[in-house]
């Protein structure tokens, strides 16, 4: 058991290292110069002042040092929990900017990922081997899963937001309100949350339902199901076993899909101007904000890794075969 988790942790550590390195590299290899754009934004015309500002900013962000040193400094700062200072909203620390956006992204991601997984599995299992349901759930599932997130988001925004006018199409809350813990604000927050949530939920739902339907059919055709039927066991028992065994690959699927789901959430946030990490990434790219971009990516990488680790643990709990395999490895 310890050996298994030790190996897992090592792999996650390596992944983290590589991801962080790529994170550091990508913004620096983007075309453009953030310092020039900051100076330009200041709108100073005096050449002497421009030069002073340029040296000041370059020093401040450490761009005057050789690349390897920048890289080393980056790790040193990171280990102290310091993500640097944002260029876009200078001089707010990146960690502060990210913390302001994280609740929105998590509030969108966690319910949509978990609910779509649970409801999708349930719908798929329910449809399997029932002709009429199968003929409806399957095509609907295919249509949903084939939809790009942002396209469905745009459709929903147009249909339910612009035409029907039921939901607001942009923002995390009304601009007329200040964030506070009042009923009014919370209700407004939920009202803005519905459409982005729905677009993420629906697209993911289709994929899970199709996967589960296929897995259940496979399990119902398996030898143990046939044996139980031959011994006259009721369908209820056979379906329960089949569901339990079919869920296992779906858990693995969830782990594999997490990265994709996060990416989908980011795009959806941009469509709805939702003030989460996705919008932050867009802003960071537009403003050449290395540090903010690094910080956001770092947060996403950490999130995906932690979620995967949790799924690894869950898998060990639900599938006895992994436990047996571990015991064998120890002996």
């Amino acid at each position, binding site marked *: 058991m310890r050996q298994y988790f030790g190996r897992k942790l090592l792999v996650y550590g390596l992944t983290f290292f590589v991801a962080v390195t790529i994170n550091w590299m990508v913004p620096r290899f983007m075309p453009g110069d953030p310092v020039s754009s900051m100076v330009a934004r200041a709108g100073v015309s005096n050449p002497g002042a421009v030069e002073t500002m340029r040296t000041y900013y370059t020093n401040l962000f450490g761009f005057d040092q050789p690349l390897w040193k920048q890289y080393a400094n980056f790790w040193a700062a990171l280990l102290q929990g310091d993500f640097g200072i944002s260029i876009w909203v200078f001089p707010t620390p990146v960690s502060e900017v990210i913390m302001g956006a994280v609740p929105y992204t998590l509030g969108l991601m966690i319910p949509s990922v978990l609910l779509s997984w649970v409801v999708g599995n349930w719908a798929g299992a329910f449809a399997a081997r029932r002709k009429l349901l199968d003929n409806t759930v399957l095509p609907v599932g295919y249509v949903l899963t084939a939809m790009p997130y942002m396209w469905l988001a745009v459709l929903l925004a147009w249909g339910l937001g612009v035409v029907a006018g039921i939901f607001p199409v942009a923002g995390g809350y009304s601009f007329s309100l200040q964030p506070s813990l009042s009923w009014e604000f919370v209700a407004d927050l939920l009202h803005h949350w519905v459409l982005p949530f729905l677009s993420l939920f629906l697209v993911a739902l289709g994929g899970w339902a199709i996967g589960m339907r296929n897995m259940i059919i496979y399990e119902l055709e398996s030898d143990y199901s046939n044996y139980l039927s031959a011994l006259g066991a009721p369908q209820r*028992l056979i379906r329960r076993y089949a569901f339990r065994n079919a869920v296992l690959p779906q858990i693995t699927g969830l782990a594999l899909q997490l990265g994709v789901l996060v990416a989908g959430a980011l795009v959806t946030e941009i469509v709805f101007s939702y003030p989460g990490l996705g919008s932050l990434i867009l802003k960071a790219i537009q403003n050449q904000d290395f540090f903010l971009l690094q910080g956001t990516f770092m947060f996403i990488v950490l999130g995906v890794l932690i979620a995967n680790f949790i799924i690894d643990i869950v898998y060990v709990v639900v599938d006895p075969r992994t436990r047996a395999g571990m015991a064998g490895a120890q002996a």
Partner: protein
Amino acid sequence: MSLRVSELRVYYRTLKGDVKALDDVSFTMRDGEILGLAGESGCGKTTLGKSLIRLDGRMRHMGGTVELDGRELPIGDDRRMNEFRFHEVSLIPQYSMSAMNPTRKIGKMVGELLRSRGVTLDRAELESRLDLVELPRTVLGNYPIELSGGMKQRMVMVISTLLNPSLLIADEVTSALDVSTQKAVAKALTGFRDAGFVKSMIFVTHDLALTSRIADTIMVMYAGRLAEKAPAGVMVTAPRHPYTKLLINSLPEVGVRYADKKLAGIAGSPPSLLDPPAGCRFRDRCPLAGDECAQEPPVAEVEPGHFVACWKA
């Protein structure tokens, strides 16, 4: 009379038409009898075994009746048949290696299965039967993957016979086992019969040598029909049907070197059951075939308990 099968017809629905896998088969079994059901692949032996407990999705009951202990089995009606399964008719499947749910502990699975059939698990009885097949009692706390192939086979045998069914169908149970395990399984099966756990048994196999050891009666099928049915000793020493004779002649013998004497086989291959030829279905491969074989031979009792479907027997 424990089991009476009369004029049973079971066809497979396919896109090209009905495959007549079981065409007009009749036989009876006594209480306590072990019937060895033999024949080459595709002769209908597995179909017959399945028909008596559960038709799969492609199989259709086209006619004939099955009577067990005086009650007719509704073999064409999946739902009504449930009442008989496990309690009256039970099965040791071909796929014992994968017959148990891989994610449930065996003891728990057995308990759940029994409860779903309205029976409470008698732990002591279960354990005494494990002792009988020489399985440690701890297997009940194991998952199926923790057992060897032979252990899984014996576990499935115990599960299938737990409710003392009247008829047990053992479908190719020894095919996937090595010779020494085969012997243990065969011994356990006869032990079950002798202990009264099962009243009678159909032992489906393609292994004539093994069948002759454990069966009281052997029934040989060919192309969906009964070819010959006789007491095991008679079948091996004095077969009457030309097909049975050739089948027994083509068995290799221990201690004989076949380098200089080629092992005899049966020339040709069985007819397609999609559209079987009229008359005797073995006619094309039969060395004795004559004009009368264009007529279908009836099953005749040439000696008490010895049935042959051949004009020349």
